[in-house]
């Protein structure tokens, strides 16, 4: 074992005599991250994926010139302070989102394929299937040392009733993360609950013996139900058995988390007010969740996160910016300039939320730079033009310099139908979670290094 003792956040806070948001400190790196690395640990690399539905108005999105020094198009204006951290990737495609004989349902397919590169099975319920998503693949590799392997956020609840998209279960249009081909990962929409997950320390004031006892009881309960599930598994058929497997793997994940969270390494509540619940307006809601993502990265509580600004096909009306029409309705613009204008307005509003997130990330100092330097953040939609329902020529941004491995501040135009998943392979390499292929990938994406 290393003689290096980890500092708990509590100790650090006490030492500094202050409760301000903390920069990442080398000594706080979990031992596992230090093992095998050079004596001086680099800040960990994180990845995040932000999703917006219904495509964007591309004429206001795509820069006119390629390479560095491009003029920011209207929709991307709010990103001006971060242009040197920004890569606009044009021409990427998620071919799995196309019908391929399955008929309508482009919204469901857009989301289900966005991070998976897999063509989802058309079903309203029985045997849902897409593919493992890039974030989950990364989480399964690098998430073992953090409190949460990954953090899934979103502003919209799953649909409450009805059909979401033409014969596709609503699971496809409300979940972006898939931990396996058949298991969508639910997202959290309530900021208070996200906060609890990140910072809950069990019973306040509980110390030593009683806490150890509680942990032991929890472990025994998990053992008990694991045995229940194993026995049950034997008496069920194959389909039901899969559900029990899901149960068992969730139990295992929780057991892992209990082991990771050693008693003296509980994260302290940060200097941030505990959120009360879901704010009524979209912007406050989105920004609160963005804050929590930043806190999670900052405290190294997770290194992988997804954030759906809205469910795919969302018909939210953005009356706060003077667009009372439904977003999905508008996206079927039929070439109407009025609708183009309103769509671009919504797109810009979403980009403003991204800019907010980036400003918070940039405010966190890490090593010689900021959190933004140690991040790869993908922002985009699984639909290009909402009117055409196309899944090529997607609007995609890559932000952050990935620990200095990405030369940002450019616009890159890729050949038509370049798989989005090539980008994911390149990102996974950088995360130390490299794989040979994912979904429909055909290789690494060239050009990120400059």
């Amino acid at each position, binding site marked *: 074992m290393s003689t290096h003792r980890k500092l708990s956040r509590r100790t650090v806070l006490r030492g500094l005599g202050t409760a301000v948001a903390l920069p990442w400190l080398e000594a706080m790196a979990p031992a596992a991250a230090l093992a095998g690395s050079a004596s001086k640990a680099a800040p960990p690399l994180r990845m995040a994926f932000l999703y917006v539905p219904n495509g964007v108005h591309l004429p206001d999105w795509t820069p006119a010139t390629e390479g560095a020094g491009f003029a920011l198009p209207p929709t991307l204006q709010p990103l001006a302070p971060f242009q040197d951290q920004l890569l606009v990737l044009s021409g990427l495609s998620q071919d799995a989102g196309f*019908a391929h004989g*399955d*008929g*309508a349902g482009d919204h469901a397919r857009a989301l289900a394929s966005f991070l998976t590169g897999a063509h989802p*099975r*058309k*079903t309203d*319920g*029985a045997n*849902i299937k897409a593919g493992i998503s890039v974030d989950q693949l990364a989480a399964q590799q690098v998430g073992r040392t953090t409190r949460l392997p990954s953090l899934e956020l979103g502003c919209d*609840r*799953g*649909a*409450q*009733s009805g059909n*979401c998209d033409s*014969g596709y*279960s*609503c*699971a496809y249009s409300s*979940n972006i993360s898939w*931990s396996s081909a058949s*298991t*969508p*990962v*639910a*997202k*959290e929409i*309530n900021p208070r*609950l996200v906060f609890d997950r990140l910072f809950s320390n069990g019973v306040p004031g509980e110390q030593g013996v009683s806490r150890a006892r509680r942990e032991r*009881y929890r472990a*025994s*309960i998990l053992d*008990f*139900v694991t045995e*229940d*599930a194993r026995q*049950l598994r034997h*008496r*069920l058929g*194959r*389909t*039901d058995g899969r*559900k*029990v497997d899901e*149960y068992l*793997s*969730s139990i295992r994940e*929780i057991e892992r988390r209990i082991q990771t969270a050693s008693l003296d390494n509980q994260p302290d509540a940060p200097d941030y007010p505990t959120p009360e619940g879901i704010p009524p307006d979209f912007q406050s809601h989105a920004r609160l969740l963005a804050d929590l993502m930043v806190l999670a990265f900052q405290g190294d509580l997770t290194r992988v996160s997804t954030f759906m600004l809205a469910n795919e096909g969302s018909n939210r*009306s953005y*009356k706060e910016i003077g667009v*009372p*029409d439904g977003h999905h309705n508008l996206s*079927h*613009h*039929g070439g*109407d300039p*009025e*609708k183009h204008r309103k769509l671009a307005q919504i797109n810009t509003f979403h980009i403003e939320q991204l800019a907010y997130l980036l400003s918070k990330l940039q405010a966190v100092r890490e090593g010689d730079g900021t959190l933004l330097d140690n991040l790869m953040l993908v922002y985009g939609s699984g639909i290009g033009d909402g009117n*055409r329902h196309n899944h090529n020529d997607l609007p995609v941004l890559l932000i952050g310099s990935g620990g200095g491995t990405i030369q940002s501040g450019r616009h890159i135009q890729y050949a038509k139908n370049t798989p989005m998943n090539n980008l994911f392979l390149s990102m996974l390499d950088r995360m130390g979670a490299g794989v040979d292929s994912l979904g429909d990938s055909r290789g690494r994406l060239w050009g990120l290094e400059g």
Partner: protein
Amino acid sequence: MRQSRFTAWLSPALLVAIVVPCALGADEVAKPGTFEAKVAPVLNKYCISCHGGKKPKAGVNLATFTDEAAVLKDLKTWEKVLENVELGLMPPEDKPQPTEVEVETLTAWVESTLTSANCRGPADPGRVTLRRLNRNEYNNTIRDLVGIDFHPADDFPSDDVGYGFDNIGDVLSLPPLLMERYLAAAEQIVQRAIIADERLDPLTRRRELERFGKNPREQAAGQPYKGFARGLASNGEIVLEFQPSREGNYQVRVRAFGQQAGPDPARLTVRVDGKDIETVDVTATEDAPGTYDVLIPLTPGRRKIALAFVNDYYKPDDSDPKLRGDRNLYLDWVEFRGPIADLKSLPEPHRRIVFLQPSSKKSEWRGNARIILERFASRAYRRPATPEELDRLLTLFDMALKDGERFERGIQLAVEAVLVSPHFLFRVEYDDDEAAHPLNDYELAARLSYFLWSSMPDEELFTLAAEHKLQNNDVLDAQVRRMLNDPKASALVENFAGQWLQIRNLKTLNPDPGQFPNFDEALRSAMIRETELFFQAILTEDRSLLDFLDADFTFLNERLAKHYGIKGVRGEEFRRVPLTDPRRGGILTQASILTITSNPTRTSPVKRGKWILEQVLGAPPPPPPPDVPELLEGKDARLSGSLRQRMEQHRVDPGCASCHVRMDPLGFGFENFDPIGAWREQDEGLPIDPSGVLPSGQTFQGPAELKAILKTKDAEFARCLAEKMLTYALGRGLEYPDKCAVDRITATLSSDQYRLTRLVREIVKSDPFRKRKGKGDES
């Protein structure tokens, strides 16, 4: 895939009648010889060139099928044929394509043949995938199991929806996030339900009585006696103040003795706040003082406890020496002990679970715990817990006791484990049989209770299951009737009706506040309430489901009545209101439905039409092709006419027309209702034209006439509703063989005036509801 097959047979009659009038008629489909005359030619023309000959593609040789008998021997192949043709996968794009009529001829025949083949003999009852409780079911089950209605599942991630409902086993997944919540909820529930801390310990306080402090609320009668007691020489009371912090029974123990005289012993009455509780005979004397106990019920606050001497006796001169004397009462001290932890003083949820008190001998605790846990686990698992399960649960109990924890803490741990066990979280139906089999009694009880109550079975259902009486049709009928009359049946309204009619979506819709400034939360919830009460009325008044389409009553409060322009309804509470204007009445003209089928800024006749086709007629239109030009909107667009005129221009494209001709007229009929369901005569300054022509040629003028036409589609509507409700009841998408059950249910319904309760009863008695496919049949 299954879905498309299923929807395809939803309404072949309607499709055939409306879309392709020249394909096979319903009677023709079933006629012998149709295969040879009509179907085989289509196969020969488009399929056999690949799927025939010596090396048929994909090993599928359709040339071997020369008559219906041959088809019946290989249904699996024909299910695939149907699927591929319907999805447009076959013939491949680069081969000659059959006409719409030819496709319809082929598919209608295969449909019908497969169906009648499937309904012959014992039908395949299907098998639902292991369902975990969804959020509503979890909340309700905890409410009924533990007796705490505090909605722990409100913090759970939302349940995904499949086939229109959120109780579908296949899509109810269990990610770590949810497991985390289950664990937290279980911990929270046991802590709230079971008391396992110092609150169980009675507090004891002793007061010496010879001396008193200065509390003005207290009163010390009598005199100190020999420095250790207080003597009462005449009737009077000592009043003490006691402040219990918790409600419960308290024991008052008094050490006392009497100076006895006369025929009776000295008597002591205990009063609480001036009220006599009990009088005891103090027979002891000074040489051996006695202790006397009185149990008093107390509520928290400042209580006055009085100890009164009530039978003073003073006859120093009586001639009878036996009666001569002076009776006095002496009190040494008083103890208040409480609250006494008898079951009655503990909160209801605690008593419900820990229904017997641990024995005074610790060696018997394990036996006590076993009895308690057997009862709890059997209710939680919705079937008797096995001895092996109890043994394992008791190891958790043992662990706590070994740590020196209380009896109740041990129970807490075991109960917590039960609440995260897969047997609680999932509704388990075992697959021990290889062949299709009836559900066991407990499984059936759970299907019933989750269908009608979205919760666990109650004692009556458990008892009937234990006595093996539930499989009896008359018993089932009686139970359904009883359950529908129980308040818990409101779950069927909220969860089934809320999703069938999609009014749940109203909670997240936001009509344009610029155009509809009067739309607020009060109006939103009033809209939902109207539709719920209306559904409830049709259910509890045993009405025909056709009343959904048109009715001469509804439920309104002042707010909604004003919205509808109906006078004379005052106040916030809802009441039944007769409707005199035939234009308003039935779900189609309720503001809830009219709003969810509109866009935030305008009505959508397409959405309204589509909703009717999907939720009422069970004939969903195919999805739109990609890359369709959209409607012109905005100021410039208005120059080219009303919304309706623009839609009609838009529809000129023949690719769009085939479907829109079915959807749009239905929506146009309701154009007089604005995007939030208020009546209007004009839109965008142009008069509204609510007339229409249906594909059948029927014409109508406005909502009243359109509703009248829809009411004649009784068979389609009944079938549609039966399918939706069966889907909800089973928790799975319907499959091919379920058509047999649906056929039977709808036939019975039509013979019983389409009563909604009859629909519920027939579903409960149907094979898919009462049986389960065997393990051997898993595909």
